């Protein structure tokens, strides 16, 4: 890549990293970049924790018989779900990459409310630690969905404390969303019109809207859940005259859109990566931008497809099934636009691009199997089987985690000023890809054969596929661990990257790496969109160079 050569660049003297010293300057910072780093550290720790629980599950499922007892297994998969969903997937891309990049990408000094931003990190930590405390005390056995009346009336585990933690983390996500929406409206640099916004910012904006509209509903649902436990009243308990399906409606009214909180920012990352590494402007910019909004809006109309077998009315089931298919349209718009961007692009295969290409393939599988699940008749067969597990892991891990890692690699030089070792990066990307498919593809087959989720034992004929899956999980674990080492290594020994190691476009590459505290020395004036690549000019230069060589 241009400019990536060693020794060409020098580290800038004053950056956001060394402008102030001491632990206090970090814990009381208002700098969106420092808060992003705080998030990065805490989220990585929680991700590792969730990974430990995942390993427990996979070890248990290695053999048909019980290694852990049923009670323990219930707590392990619940802990895995809660940690991964509420403490990793929902905050990961917005709170780390979004926090770091959104202000820089629109040419702002910071977010609109820096103190609120810091508050959101503290809320996240308090909520996270409460949930963690509940786990240390013995955990929860309800599954991450907290279905009633089990969770309200019968479960003997720490539902209340965990609920409180999730409630508080919800406010962390609301404050982040509020900050992003207002920043995007009010803080854009001169010339940064809506039609010039990077697609990453569009997707963050759409995500923030979902956070604002959906998160309060889960908050109030958790309040009702906790109050029911305390008061011993049963709005969600059929024995006491209530209705458990009401809980499911309220829960999924948030938790389905929450899937889009997880995937939309990932799509934003991918749009940036594809454009940068194929050196073309994203094909159909406005379609990609508006499909983010469309997904955010349609995402609120489909929650009932989680309730097909819950006793909801058959008519509601049909309507929800039809509505669910609509979400496929904006998602497909994005995939087609990315592949069209690749076409005739000047593609290079650095680590972030490997992640981006992996994303397209895995998201296609995850998305298309989603249509299986949205089909009312088929879903009755595959509900609560490993098919569902495989489907949402293809979307959550195969898409969101992959995009998150791709984004971390792509913007790592910007965040730290140093490049990571490319060989190790590529190797771990490939290991993750192989390990991921080996882990979760067998689960599609298992689910289709009828293996139910959330059981710690299974009939022996399922063992081969389960061994494959556990083997894949080990490869995946190695793939996830490698970046921890080489990224930390690069902090000290990585080559100095310079402001624009990828030769990419966009405001974030016009400031120093790492950027100064207020991002730009002078407020930038934007005169063109973020994807002013010229693939044909690049191609011509390449051909000219070839001619030169032949002579």
């Amino acid at each position, binding site marked *: 890549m241009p400019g990536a050569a060693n020794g060409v660049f020098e580290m800038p003297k004053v950056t956001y990293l060394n402008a102030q010293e001491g632990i206090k300057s970090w814990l009381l910072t208002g700098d969106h970049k420092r808060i992003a780093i705080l998030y990065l550290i805490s989220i990585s720790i929680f991700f590792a924790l969730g990974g430990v629980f995942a390993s427990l599950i996979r070890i248990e499922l290695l053999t048909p018989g019980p290694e852990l007892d049923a009670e323990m297994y219930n707590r392990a998969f619940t802990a895995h779900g809660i940690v991964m969903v509420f403490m990793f997937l929902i905050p990961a891309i917005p709170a780390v990459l979004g926090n770091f990049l959104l202000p820089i990408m629109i040419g702002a000094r910071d977010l609109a409310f820096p103190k609120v931003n810091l508050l959101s990190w503290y809320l996240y930590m308090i909520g996270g630690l409460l949930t963690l405390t509940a786990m240390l005390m013995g955990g929860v056995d309800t599954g991450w969905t907290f279905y009633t009346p089990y969770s309200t009336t019968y479960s003997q585990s720490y539902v209340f404390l965990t609920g409180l933690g999730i409630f508080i983390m919800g406010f962390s996500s*609301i404050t982040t969303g*509020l900050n992003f*929406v*207002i920043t995007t409206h009010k803080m854009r640099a001169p010339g940064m019109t809506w039609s010039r916004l990077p697609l990453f910012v569009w997707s963050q904006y759409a995500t923030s809207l979902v956070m*604002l*509209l*959906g*998160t*309060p*509903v889960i*908050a*109030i*649902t958790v*309040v*009702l859940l906790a*109050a*029911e436990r*305390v*008061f*011993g*009243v*049963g*709005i969600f308990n059929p024995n*006491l*005259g*209530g*209705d458990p399906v*009401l809980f499911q*409606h*309220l829960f999924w*009214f948030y938790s389905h859109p929450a899937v889009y909180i997880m995937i939309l920012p990932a799509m934003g990352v991918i749009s940036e990566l594809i454009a940068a590494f194929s050196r073309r402007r994203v094909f159909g910019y406005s379609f990609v931008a508006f499909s983010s909004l469309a997904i955010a809006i349609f995402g609120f109309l489909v929650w009932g497809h989680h309730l097909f077998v819950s006793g909801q009315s058959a008519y509601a089931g049909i309507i929800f099934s039809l509505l669910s298919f609509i979400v496929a349209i904006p998602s497909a718009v994005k995939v087609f636009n990315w592949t069209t961007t690749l076409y005739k692009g000047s593609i290079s295969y650095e680590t972030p691009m490997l992640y981006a290409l992996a994303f397209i393939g895995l998201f296609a599988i995850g998305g298309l199997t989603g249509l299986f699940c949205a089909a009312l008749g088929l879903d009755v067969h595959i509900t609560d089987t490993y098919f569902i597990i495989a489907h949402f892991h293809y979307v959550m891990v195969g898409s969101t985690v992959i995009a998150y890692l791709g984004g971390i690699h792509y913007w790592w030089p910007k965040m730290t000023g140093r490049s990571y070792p490319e060989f190790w990066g590529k190797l771990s990307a490939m290991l993750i890809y192989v390990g991921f498919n080996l882990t979760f593809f067998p689960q599609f087959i298992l689910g289709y054969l009828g293996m139910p989720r959330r059981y710690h034992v299974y009939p022996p004929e399922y063992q081969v596929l389960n061994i494959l899956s556990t083997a894949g999980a080990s490869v995946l674990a190695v793939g996830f661990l490698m970046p921890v080492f080489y990224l930390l290594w690069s902090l000290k020994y990585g080559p100095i990257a310079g402001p624009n190691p990828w030769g990419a476009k966009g405001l974030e590459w016009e400031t120093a790496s790492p950027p100064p505290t207020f991002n730009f020395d002078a407020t930038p004036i934007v005169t063109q969109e973020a994807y002013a690549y010229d693939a044909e000019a690049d191609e011509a230069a390449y051909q000219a160079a070839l001619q030169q060589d032949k002579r």
Partner: protein
Amino acid sequence: MWAFLVTEVMFFGGLFLAYTFLRWKHHDAVVAASGHLDWILGGVNTGVLLISSLTMAMAVHAAQEGKRKATVNFLILTMILGAVFLGVKAFEYSHKWHDGLFPGFNFHWTENPAYAGGAEMFLFLYFVMTGLHGLHMVVGIGLVAWIIKRANRGDFTPEYNIPVEITGLYWHFVDIVWIFLYPLLYLIQPPHH
């Protein structure tokens, strides 16, 4: 601020959904239980909140015109009215406790036993909804107190008074929630029955 209010609407929205479900499923029990709520006290409280919204609007008006004294006075009036509302609410709550209408801990339904379950759930929702509304009132009073302090210090001018306006928006929003809660909770059963 409006973006924040959207969040608040959805926060209460979940409760309204639960309420609608309950009313649909246990209509007669809800009617019977609602008869135990004091529509006069509820009505007085509605009036108190509406007056407080007026004083709040006048406070914002005074701040926009740069009248510091009037701003502070109207804000103090708003705060007092908010406190009156909470006082009446506390009186109602203690009454419910004495009547054995406090779900979970002190609930003794003496009428048609078929309605006991539905009535308990209705009163449960009554306490959750009015309780959360009361919590918002407490936060609102805190915000107004803070604004009074700033106004006294002379922070606000005709050019800069956004904090007053934002506090006003919040106060009016809490008022609106009550505008819906009153008929939905108190006025289900015609009072003359």
